[in-house]
């Protein structure tokens, strides 16, 4: 039997199974959304596929009862781990009134849900980075011991808001975990044309914080560094930059055709490292994911996704005139 890595990290069998379940649910919801888009039922999809391990591994390393998440548009794994449901996400896909993210006001992928401390986001990238710093600052001022996790792509690590936010957090030693989900592409532009340095984590030193690059297809590896970063934050040692390297398995969005800028072979190669496959393999080797359990899990999640789809499709849209509400406090 292969080495049991999760015990070493202090994770129980149930916890790693729960991690896998969350990853698989994210994947299944995402796949369903593509089908719904191609069937003409929802106008837009933007995917998490290929990044579930990083998203779920990082989230499980946090205290999901008090820490804050500032996800970016691919972070279905993060928001599911923080308490959003399949139904919530489908309601967002169909832009229905009950969508907790925005009540059907924003495109899918623009997450936000205050009760689960998932902070609302927009489309201009990286604006959430200073917000995560502000939330950490507020926590420090109020002597709370939560941390904030902010995620973004490697392309976004070129934006001023990343540098300004990271520097601010470094100067004021704030408990922020900056996690770059490096999926190798910013829409069509490869990482070689995005970064002059070798790794995004090389940038950490400029802001007085440690930087780690980990295998983003390995949820346990991501868990380990994010856990360490969270502990550092809670101990008043300041922020950490984590770079989780994986691969974007889908086109940028439902409006993109990635065959125009990358080779199929490259995608096929990446699929071999897909965490949904490799982490399942690990769990099988540990006898945690038996054939029976796997079948039951698939059936359970398929049903969950079906129910969520049906519910969301039949749910009501917001009243047209409700567009006038909540510009200001009412």
């Amino acid at each position: 039997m292969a080495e049991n890595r999760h015990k070493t990290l202090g994770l129980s069998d149930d916890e790693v199974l729960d991690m896998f379940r969350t990853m698989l649910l994210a994947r299944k919801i995402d796949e369903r959304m593509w089908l719904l888009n191609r069937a003409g039922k929802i106008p837009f999809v933007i995917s998490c596929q290929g990044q579930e391990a990083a998203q779920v591994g990082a989230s499980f390393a946090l205290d999901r009862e008090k820490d804050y998440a500032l996800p970016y548009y691919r972070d279905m794994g993060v928001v599911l781990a923080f308490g959003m449901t399949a139904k919530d996400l489908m309601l967002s896909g169909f832009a229905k009134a009950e969508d907790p993210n925005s009540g059907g006001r924003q495109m899918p992928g623009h997450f936000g849900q205050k009760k689960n401390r998932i902070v609302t986001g927009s489309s201009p990238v990286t604006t959430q980075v200073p917000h995560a710093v502000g939330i950490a600052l507020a926590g420090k001022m109020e002597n709370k011991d939560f941390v904030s996790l902010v995620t973004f792509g490697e392309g976004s690590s070129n934006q001023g808001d990343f540098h300004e936010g990271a520097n601010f957090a470094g100067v004021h030693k704030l408990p922020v975990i900056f996690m770059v989900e490096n999926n190798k592409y910013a829409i069509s532009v490869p990482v070689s044309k995005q970064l002059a340095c070798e790794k995004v984590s090389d940038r950490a030193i400029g802001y007085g914080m440690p930087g780690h690059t980990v295998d983003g297809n390995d949820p346990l590896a991501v868990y380990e560094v994010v856990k360490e970063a969270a502990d550092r934050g809670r101990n008043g040692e300041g922020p950490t930059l984590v770079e989780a390297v994986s691969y974007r398995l889908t086109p940028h969005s439902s409006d993109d055709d990635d065959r125009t800028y990358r080779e199929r072979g490259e995608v096929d190669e990446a699929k071999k490292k897909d965490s949904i496959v490799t982490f399942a393999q690990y769990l099988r080797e540990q006898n945690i994911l038996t054939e029976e359990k796997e079948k039951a899990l698939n059936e359970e999640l398929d049903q969950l996704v079906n129910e969520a789809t049906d519910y969301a499709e039949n749910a009501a849209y917001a009243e047209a005139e409700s567009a006038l509400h909540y510009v200001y406090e009412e």
Partner: protein
Amino acid sequence: MAVISYIQAVTQALKEEMQRDEKVFVLGEDVGKRGGVFRATDGLYEEFGEARVLDTPLAESAIAGVGIGAAMYGMRPVAEMQFADFIMPAVNQIISEAAKTRYRSNNDWSVPMTIRAPYGGGVHGALYHSQSVEALFANQPGLKIVMPSTPYDVKGLLKASIRDNDPVLFFEHKRAYRLIKGEVPDEDYTLPIGKADVKREGSDITVITYGLCVHFALQAAEKLAEEGIEAHVLDLRTVYPLDQEAIIEAASKTGKVLLVTEDNKEGGIISEVSAIISENCLFDLDAPVKRLAGPDIPSMPYAPTMEKYFMMNPDKVEKAMRDLAEF
């Protein structure tokens, strides 16, 4: 009642709000130990300490963005942009984030933040220390823009801005900081955001303006009164969203309306005021609605000749008022 300066009213409001509510804190460049380059935060660092009077790195987008994050958490940050001219790197945070947070989250999240910034010319500040930037933000639903003219209004409106549950841009005229003094009550009070204020009653012409120009209009009005011309002066106080009711009432009162700003002419706040008047007051108008504004050049040049040419002053306002009165 004590007579204090415009900037002292700013400091007093900040201090009282910080005493009243522990969630209120100040952040910006040089606001801490130095007490602000204009000394608006003078004494706050000593009283409240560095945790609540935060000297930030020199990065405006972070000042706004960190403030937004803290506000979303539930704090009441008061961010200072050292000059309104330097707010540009923070525009994405202000417009894409602060203004839209409540709306985009369907009322789940909100940003109770105030951003203060000194604006305006007449201080030999040249292109990048003289601008009026309000028009850039004045078509962004979700934002409120307050531009007070008197120390009394400064204190009441700054307190109201800090207590407001939505983002407020609070623009202070830097020339007014020490030039304008006035009576301000010692006790706590707030003034309503979104309400204009009649600063002078008159029946011959109506002047609608805001900020330092209110004083130019009032001075000109006193002169014209000696000639028997009585001007009605409306101070907008909040330039976005506008107090339409007060504008319509003031315009209808005399039917002759002069709009004054020190900003450029095209596309400014007063152009919107003019649109409101033309939509609502056609049958009350007795003359074309007139705009008096800076020329449509980028900003105030440094050389005194050119600066004076751009900058508004009581003489320019008086001339335009008389011209309209005679129409």
